[in-house]
Each structure stands twice: as C-alpha cells, then as structure tokens.
C-alpha cells in the first residue's frame, strides 16, 4: 500500500468559501493509505509547494493527492514540486475541487461532500499509480508554415532569421495572400503593396526559406518534433526553375476570358498567368481549367513563345515528403459569400460590391487602374452607400451569417469612405452602422477624421433593402437616431462582408488533429495564456486562421508563433509523455485489433518466444508499442478483447478504482 499525503488547497476563498477544506482534509485523512492530510491557503504558492516537499521527505510519501484547481491548471506545477522532492511526478493526482466543486456548487455542505468524494477517487487512483519515466525523442530542426499570406510570411521570416529552415506551403501560385490585394492600410494609409512586397521578396530570397507555391498539404503523420508531411505540388505546367517571369506567354495566350481572382473577378486574365506583377515566385502558372492546349490539345502557343522553354504540358502533380519538427498554420480568411443577403441586390447589380472588390476598384494596380468607376457602366459614382456588418453578428438560428464580429470592417469602411472623399470630393458617402468599433491605437481618431474632416455621413441604422432601378440603386434604410426611414438613390453600394476562415482549414485541421471551434477557427491551447499554440503539441497558429485580426495583430501573432517554434526547434530532444499504451505480452494474442485503431501507427507485431507448459517454448505473435509515437489516446485499450493493452497513467484498474470510489 502507498503512503499517501493529501493536500487540500483553499485557493484563497475560491475553494474555502464553498468547501469546508478542514472537513475535507479530516475525512480524507481516514482513508486507507493516507498517512497525512492537511489544508493550506495556496498550495501552488512557494510555501505551499515547500510544505509538500517537506512532507514527502519527512513522511516518506509514495503518493500525493492535491485537492485544488483543475489539473489542467497546476498538475504540471505539482508534479515538478514532487519531482524535486524525489517523488516520481506521476505519483501525483489532482482532485479538481475548484472548477468542479467550489465554483459550481454554492451549498457548502454539498460542495464539501463532493470534494471528499473526488478526493477519495484521487486517492483510489494513486493507490494504483506506478512511477513512470518519460522517454526522449529527437527534434527535426525544420518548420513548416501552411499559408503564405502576411501571417505565414512573417512567421517564416522570423523562424528563418533564427537559423532554422522553413518551408512555406501556399495553395495559390504566389505568396502574398489577402494583403497583396489591399490598396491602403488603416490607420496610417500606407500602401499595402509598399510594405508587403519587400517582405515577399525577403522570403523569396532567404536561404532558409523554401516557398512551395501552388501546393497543398496531403497528409500529416507523426507528432511534435517529428512530423511526416506529404505535400502535393500541383502541376502548374511551367518549370519553376526555368521560368523567368517575363510575361511573354501571358501576352500571347489566346484564352483571355478567365475571371481574374486577384481582382475579385472584376476583370479577366489569361489561362497562363502570373497573378500580379510582384508575385513571388514570379513564375507563370497554367490554369488547367481554361487552357486550350490542356483541354482540347490544340494551341500550345505559350510553349512556342517561351524563350526559357519552361512550359511543360506533361507536368503531373508531385508528392513531396518532408520531415518537420513544428507546423505553423496560417491559412487566413475569405469574405463570406453574399448570396444569402440578396436584400442588398448583390447578385442583381454589379454596382453592389463587397469591400474587397471595392479595395481592388480603388487600387492603382486594379481593374480600373485606380480610378473609381462603377462596374456596370464605368462611370464615376456620385453617391456611395457603405453597409456595415453584412453577415457579422448574426444570430445562429438565423443561419445567414456569422455570430462573431469580423473586427476589421469598421476600420476599413472608414478607410474606404475617407479615401473616396479625398480623391473624389464631389461624392457623397453614407455609412450605415450598428456600432462603430474602433479599439486600437489611433483607430478612433481615424474614424473621427472620416466624420469630421471628410464629412462622411455616418448613419446609425441599417439598410433594409437595395433595389436597382433606372441605373440607380434605391437604398431604403432606417435612421434610428432620427427615428425615420430614409431613401437614398445611390450609384454604388459597398457591403462590408463578414470574414470566415479559409475553406481549406477544416480538412487541414483534421489532418493535423488540431481542434477547431464551431466557426472553423483553430482553437488555441489556452485563450489567454497560449494564444498561438494549438492544443495539439507542435502545431502553432498564426493570423486569421485563429480569429479575425487586422494586419498589425496578425504580424504580432506571426512573430509570437515563430518564437514558439524557435523555442521548440532549439531543443535537441523532447521529453515525451510517459502515459502511453503498454501491452501485456503474456496476455496478448496478436489479433491486430489494436493496430487497426491506432491513429499513429504506433503498434507493430513481433513473434516472440515464451515459456510454455512442461518446459516447452511457444512462439507467439504479440503487439509492441513504440512509446515515442504513441500519444496515449487509449483507443487500442478498448479494442483489445484480451485486456492485454493498457494505458499507463490511465489504466483500466485506475479508472475502475475511480469509478468505485465515486459510486461508493
């Protein structure tokens, strides 16, 4: 039997106010195996920890139960404490009497009783604990960044700066992401291209960075420090090494009616294309959906005009297999589809545009060369209505948009309004808002400038409908402060569409075994304390894949993710989790049930000699678990009909002992 010490924490009044800690310690001191039980104000404080260490040494404790906050909070702390006193850290169990007792049960008698039961369960478990020793695995000193927007670029640059090789996998032909499509950036109004393109070039030229553009993640296996990733390099039908990016092919390509996604479909491009002038890598790509040669076999002009002989119609998708120690997700966002908001006539009139389309219409490199013209008749608009919160802040049951605030729309709308008024002072600009949200350095000042200096009409209210009529857009809206309904004949309407995670994020999350929230944003390991890490070890988050963000926030998070990656990659070895599956080879019958459910391929089989009856030797097929690969999920333990497979730290008997203690 173990010699167990029980330490009940008050957590100040957090626990002590609703749990009689003294009674808990007293009751638990009577449990078999318990040689010491006490209570203290803050077990996690230095003096609390000192007390634990002292008692371990003084009483020769072989097990420790701490009744305190959630093990997710301080299990690691107390394990370290005990380890420093010479006790194996896995001889510690936590009874969660704060989150699961004092914070949820107001009645002190009820809370105390439950705390005692949880304490008993922990004691019952410790009785069966065995010292566990963690294994070590080496770290592959290379990082993978998925997504080549500003987030991915910044993360890659920072990791590369620390001297570690980084691969950026970007699904589009060029890195740059959404930021490359923007015109100016708030609140300083500097040009997006001017600040982004140097970074793209840096990334392209950094010897530690390899850009795998036009590529996607096919499969991810392994675990922190040792990921095996398969990357699909989609056929771009152009040899990246040979292409000089001269653009001759684009000039000659006869297929010129391909909607230009870089310009949000507002104009067309050719079938062989470089998305934009500053693309990195500046390499042409053939759009297989439109290329005449690839679809009909006739044409081949680009190949003929290419002086570098870079065009290769026979190119196939390739699968690249690489090893990484860390993976950063930077998959970014997209504006939502506006099809469910037809009251704004988005599909009825080309003059109703989304903000990102408006961004392109204002951009000097955009379809209109930077002159603001109505898409329908290419005339200059004189009245523009901006509608905020389109698809953001919706009720879930409305099933139209997103529940969250998209965060960036207020600011970019102010920017759009301001820029419009600056360039075209003869244009009347109306902004319909629900709230103007400007928390950020210089943000509210920026918004006030739009109102005060640029005379943008901010109207508290919402547009109810937009009807295209006689070349105008009849906007019907409410002005809540005036308590009247207003009607505006507008030339253009700009919708601040909500943003959502890129569609590729959900399948990627499954491959990475990283968790996501209901909106498909990646979940962070801790919302406050570990905002750039995924709960899955070795997976890090950068940019809007984690939640809506503006550029400065994205860059900050990108740097943070990079620093986390670096602190992982500088390690030569990682100490593993010793709570792994362990087969009892005397019981194992080698049926392969466990292998079939192992998501990590951690289980193999071996033919082993065993002593049989009457001095015979039997060769039996038995399961072998690789503890470095096993992540300790326990799927195999249930699949095993013999009960031969067990999970260290969460063994069948330990869990049953907890059940018994709780149901007693």
């Amino acid at each position: 039997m173990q010699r167990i010490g029980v330490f009940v924490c008050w957590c100040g009044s957090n626990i002590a106010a609703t749990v009689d800690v003294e009674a808990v310690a007293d009751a638990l001191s009577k449990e078999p195996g318990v040689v010491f039980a006490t209570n203290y104000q803050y077990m996690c404080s230095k003096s609390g920890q000192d007390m634990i260490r002292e008692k371990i040494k003084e009483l020769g404790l072989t097990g420790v139960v701490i009744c305190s906050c959630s093990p997710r909070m301080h299990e690691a702390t107390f394990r370290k404490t005990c380890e420093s006193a010479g006790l194996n850290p896995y001889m510690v169990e936590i009874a969660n009497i704060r989150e699961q007792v004092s914070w949820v049960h107001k009645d002190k008698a009820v809370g105390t009783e439950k705390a005692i039961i949880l304490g008993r369960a922990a004691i019952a478990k410790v009785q069966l604990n065995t010292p566990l020793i963690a294994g070590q695995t080496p770290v592959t000193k290379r990082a993978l960044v998925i997504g080549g927007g500003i987030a991915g670029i910044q993360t890659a640059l920072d990791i590369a700066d620390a001297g570690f090789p980084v691969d950026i996998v970007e699904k589009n032909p060029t890195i740059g992401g959404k930021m490359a499509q923007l015109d100016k950036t708030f609140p300083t109004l500097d040009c997006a291209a001017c600040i982004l393109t140097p970074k793209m070039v840096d990334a392209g030229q950094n010897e530690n960075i390899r850009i795998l553009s036009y590529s996607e993640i096919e499969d991810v296996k392994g675990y922190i420090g040792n990921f095996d990733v398969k990357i699909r390099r989609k056929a771009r039908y152009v040899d990246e090494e040979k292409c000089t990016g001269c653009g001759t092919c684009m000039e000659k390509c006869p297929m010129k009616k391909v909607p230009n996604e870089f310009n949000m479909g507002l104009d067309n491009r050719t079938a062989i294309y470089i998305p934009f002038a500053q693309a990195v890598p500046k390499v042409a790509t053939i759009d297989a959906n439109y290329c005449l040669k690839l679809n009909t076999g006739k044409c081949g002009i680009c190949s003929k005009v290419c002086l570098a002989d870079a065009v290769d119609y026979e190119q196939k998708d390739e699968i690249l297999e690489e090893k990484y120690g860390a993976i950063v997700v930077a998959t970014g966002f997209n504006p939502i589809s506006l099809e469910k908001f037809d009251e704004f006539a988005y599909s009825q009139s080309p003059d109703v545009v989304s903000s990102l389309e408006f961004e392109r219409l204002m951009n000097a490199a955009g379809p209109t060369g930077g002159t603001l013209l109505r898409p329908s008749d290419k005339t200059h608009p004189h009245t523009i209505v901006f509608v905020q919160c389109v698809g953001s802040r919706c009720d879930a049951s409305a099933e139209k948009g997103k529940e969250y605030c998209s965060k960036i729309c207020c600011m970019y709308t102010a920017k759009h309004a301001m820029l419009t008024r600056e360039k075209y002072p003869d244009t009347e600009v109306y902004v319909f808002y629900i709230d103007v949200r400007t928390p950020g350095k210089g943000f509210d000042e920026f918004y006030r400038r739009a109102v005060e200096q640029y005379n943008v009409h901010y109207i508290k209210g919402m547009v109810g409908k937009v009807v295209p009529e006689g070349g105008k857009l009849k906007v019907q809206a409410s002005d809540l402060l005036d308590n009247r309904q207003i009607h505006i004949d507008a030339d253009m309407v700009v919708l601040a569409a909500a943003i959502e995670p890129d569609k590729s994020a959900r399948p990627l999350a499954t491959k990475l075994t990283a968790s996501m929230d209901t909106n498909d944003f990646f979940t962070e390991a801790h919302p406050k304390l570990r905002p750039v890490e995924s709960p899955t070890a070795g997976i890090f988050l950068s940019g809007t894949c984690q939640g809506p963000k503006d550029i400065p926030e994205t860059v900050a998070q990108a740097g943070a993710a990079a620093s986390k990656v670096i602190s992982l990659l500088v390690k030569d070895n990682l100490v593993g989790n010793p709570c792994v599956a362990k087969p009892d080879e005397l019981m194992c019958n080698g049926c392969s049930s466990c292998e079939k459910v192992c998501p990590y391929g951690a289980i193999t089989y071996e033919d082993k000699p065993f002593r049989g009856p009457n001095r015979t030797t039997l060769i039996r097929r038995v399961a072998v678990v690789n503890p470095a690969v096993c992540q300790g999920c326990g799927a195999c333990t249930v699949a095993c009909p013999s009960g031969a497979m067990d999970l260290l730290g969460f063994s069948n008997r330990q869990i049953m002992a907890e059940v018994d203690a709780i149901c007693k």
Partner: protein
Amino acid sequence: MQAVIKKKAIELLESGTVNRVLGWKAGEFFYDLTPAVFTTPEQIEKDFVYSVFSGANMSKYLIDESKKEGKVAAFIKPCDGYSFVQLQKEHRIVRENIYAVGLACDGMCDMREIREAGIKGVTSVEEDGETLKIGTIYGEKTMAKKDALLERCVHCKSKKVVDCDEMIGENGEENRDCGRFDEVEKLEAMSPDERFAFWRSQLSRCIRCNACREVCPACSCVKCVFDNPNSGIAQKAAASDFEENNFHIIRAFHVAGRCTDCGECSRVCPEHIPLHLLNRKFIKDMNELYGFYQAGADFESKPPVMNYTTGDAEPSIVYARGGDK
C-alpha cells in the same frame, strides 16, 4: 458423404499431403461425436464419422493444430469456414500448415431438438430423405429432419466455403434473407420491461461454465479478462445478477465484429440460453448502421468496431429507435 470424406482423408494421409486429419470420432452413441486427430488410415476407417451430428465448429482446434509439426487436414463446413478465415485474419492460425477441404452442407441436427420433441432414450438415428428414423429404448419414432436442425442451420446464412484448398460437393452462396434476425426483431419490438424480464429469465440460468466462451472461435484470448486476476473484473461464478449480465454483455462486445455467427455458443450452453441473440443484435446493429458486414467473409475488411466514417450515426440514435411501446 461420409464415404467420400473418409476416402479423401485417407488419400491425403497416404499421399503425404498431410500427416494428420482433424475430424469427428465415433462415440458411444451415433450422436456423440468428438473432435479428434487421426494419424492413420486404419483409425479413419474405424472411427471417422461424418453425419448430421458433425455440427461442431472445429476451426478453433486449428489454432493449436496448425502450430504443430507438419500439415493437418481439416474439413470445413461453410459456417466453420467463416471462423476459419476470421482466425486467419487475426493471425491465430498458420494457414500454410492446413489442408482445408470444404464441405457442402445442408444442415446439421441437434440432439436437443430431438429430445425436446419428447423422444427419449434414443439409441439410433437413420436419415431417410427428409425424415429421421429414430430408434429408442421405448420403440421407434420419426421426426422431420427440418425440425431437428440446429438453430443456426434453420437460419443458414451461407452455404459458401470462403477459403479452402478443395471442395467436396458444390460450393454454395450466401443467403442474406435467412431470417436470422427475426428473433432479434421480436425482442426489439417488446417493451424494455418485457425485454428485461426475458433476458433476466435467460441469463439468470447461467452457471458460468464458460462453455460458450471455450467453444467460441472468436474467444481465442490467451487469457480471458474474466479469468485474469489483474483485469479487475475477474470472476469465477456469477455471484450476482449483475455479474451474469456483465459477463455476457462484455463477451458479446469483445467478439462484436469478429463473431461470424456460427452459433456454437447457443449450441453448447447447458442451460440453453439463446446466446446467439446477443451476438446477432450487434451484427444486426452494425449491418443497419454501418453497412452489411460478415466477419470472416474476406481477408481484408476491417470489423465495423475498428472502423468509422465521419458521418456515422450518433449514439442518440438508440433513443430514437425501437422498444418504446
């Protein structure tokens, strides 16, 4: 049939293809055949029997037999064949050491059925077409063969031998409309109280003799969890109602997806507990929820409990289904 099989067995021995033959040995009566290993043609001539009472599924014996020196000949009936393949999938038997002879089969008889028909003191049985002529110490009786069939033969799911080196008789086909789930459906249609009463009346008779487990080809564990003192649930007797339920639920769960529905558990139960109804419930659920699956029908497929699709039914489907009348 017996003559052909004996001839084949002797031929295999004499040609040196195998050095022993696994078969059925004559007993005191015509019906009490015992699985046995024959090593000489003389033994086969004398004691080898194949009759309507050769129902025992002998594939489990191959676990040990296939690990011995030399090749063993085994006669595989269609239902044994599924266990034979399933055991190969589980790496329990060494296929190279077995010469498998598939047998076409049209049903095996059960002494229990004959006795329950009120025929006592049976001393002989003769097959006369569809009728059994039964000699007893109390005079001669007759019985239709179909009424004396084993439960699993009444609802024969397949007459196909999945894997063998040669066939005696013509290989048959699967029959998915064999009605083997009718009894399960009947139970499902009852109210929970009725079902509980039914199973209590059945399982309360369990004497935990382990016959169901020991005969089961899927129960091939080195040591069963119920025998393993370290498992935390070891029990030698069903000392409470719970333990009766527990043993049978866990056993059914452990063989779920691997159980070929050979029906041996029900055949051997000395208390005549319809244990196959537990296994069939799992099979029926798996078929309905995850698509048809027959354990041992092939060498590749994964049992449904070791597989998944992202669109699987939620456990709450159970609340919506059946039994709330």
